[in-house]
């Protein structure tokens, strides 16, 4: 039968099926990007875990009276390692705490002129600064992929199929308010062209969209 109604029905079905496939593939891709972005964060976090013992050793000899600071760094690092794999929210919280202790450590280093000009310490400081920034940017990118995905599953027409196909909202890797404070650091004695360690840019205050 060549009735136009049959053709119309077939075309509509084809459009729905193809549209569904495209939506599904799109959502899968976005979700995979989230996983990749998260893996990138973990690479950077691990880098920081590995750098910290070197830093603590480098300053330990000079800072006999500041044991509490060093201990809190080491402890925070251990907590962060333990929190790895417990999901973005837990991990973010532990890593933010670690960032806080490192800030205190560098603020204290400012009181030790020998330490401030020590090449080893300077190099470690730059490495830690860049690692902090890289963590922050990896987190920022991760949040961007999460936003993209969450927006994808919340908007029409994907929203119709997302739930049934098993796509649910993902968590953001949030920064805590303390991470946004800027320590004032005086490095005027430095000859190297480095400047006050950059505050890792804070991720935008993102709220997970209402689960839908």
């Amino acid at each position, binding site marked *: 039968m060549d009735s136009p109604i049959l053709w119309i029905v077939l075309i509509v079905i084809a459009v729905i099926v193809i549209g569904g496939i495209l939506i599904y593939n799109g959502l899968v891709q976005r979700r995979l990007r989230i996983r990749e*972005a998260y893996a*990138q964060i973990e690479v*950077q976090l691990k880098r920081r875990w590995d750098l910290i013992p070197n830093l603590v050793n480098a300053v330990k000899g000079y800072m006999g009276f500041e044991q509490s600071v060093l201990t809190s760094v080491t402890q925070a690092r251990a907590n962060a390692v333990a929190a790895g794999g417990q999901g973005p929210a837990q991990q973010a919280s532990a890593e933010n705490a670690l960032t806080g202790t490192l800030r205190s450590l560098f603020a204290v280093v400012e009181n030790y002129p020998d330490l401030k000009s020590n090449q080893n310490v300077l*190099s470690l400081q*730059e*490495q830690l*600064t*860049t690692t902090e*920034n*890289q963590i922050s*940017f*990896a987190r*920022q*990118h991760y949040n961007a992929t999460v936003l993209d995905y969450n927006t994808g599953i919340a908007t029409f027409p994907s929203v119709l199929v997302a739930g049934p196909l098993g796509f649910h909202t993902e968590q953001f890797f949030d920064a805590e308010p303390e991470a946004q404070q800027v320590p004032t650091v005086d490095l005027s004695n430095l000859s190297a*062209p*480095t*400047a*006050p*360690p*950059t505050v890792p*840019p*804070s*991720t*935008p205050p993102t709220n997970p969209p209402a689960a839908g």
Partner: protein
Amino acid sequence: MQGQATQNFYQQESANRRQSILLVVLLTAVLATFGFVIGYALSGSWQGGIVALVIAILISMLLSSLSYFSGDSLVLSVSHAHEVNSTNAPQLLNVVQELSIAANIPMPRVYVIDDPAPNAFATGRDPKHASICVTSGLLQKMDREELQGVIGHEMSHVRNLDTRFLLLVATLVGSIALLADFFLRFTLWGGMAGRRGRDSNNGGGGALVLIMVVVGLILAIVAPIIGALVQMAVSRQREYLADASSVELTRNPYGLERALANIASDREPLAVANRATQHLYIVNPLKKFGSKSAGLMETHPPIVDRINRLRALSGEGPLDAQSSAPLAGLD
């Protein structure tokens, strides 16, 4: 939290992209009209118009593709740049690494030019074949935050595929220039003599052809000028876009803002810059200190405007008269 005067960088980026695309559409329309008019004037038929258009575009594409595929090596060697590694420029490489993570592109190759004038440029046809180059003056005079802003701007040129975009524009403008050149030569050197015989075959087409010739001549003079103006306007829009995209990457407008002010007010001329490469730099290296920018024919927007747009992103108002006076007229 955000005042009415503030925007976010997404808004600025959309506006910039939209405007640059509109400009390209305008340019395409000019080219299409021009090509068609010339073709018709020369051949007396609309098919001739289409053929002329296609030929002009193909020639222009061929010429442009040479620069597309030669890659960064030419520009870099002309500028006497040398590649750096983690021993001689660790902080620079770290900053580039950080921003490639933020931008989610592979790390570009990093070069340094030995020159006390602070400046930077990026080149390369796509993120996989990109290079970023800074001067030693920039490394000395910028702090880490400012360096991040500058590298963010350059990285954004790479990520936004500006080399390709500007090449597209150059191709269109080149086609217009080719057509104009060809048409002017052809009409001025007696190409019209042979038309008389053919016109009579087209019946009443003679008058139309004559009109097309006149229109073609006008366009031959006007279109290349329009093309050049549009090209400069596109270049300026992409600079604004790179500024806003830099803030998208760093989430920090202050670094780039300070960097622009410092670079623009630095009096050192950049030795290796010339007219062929000036459009690539973050701040126009050929601007003589103290002369006013000509506006429409500048590759870069005025520094004060760029800074004010960045200030809008951080919620501050534009620079007051006192602060902007030393930077007025600079780009």
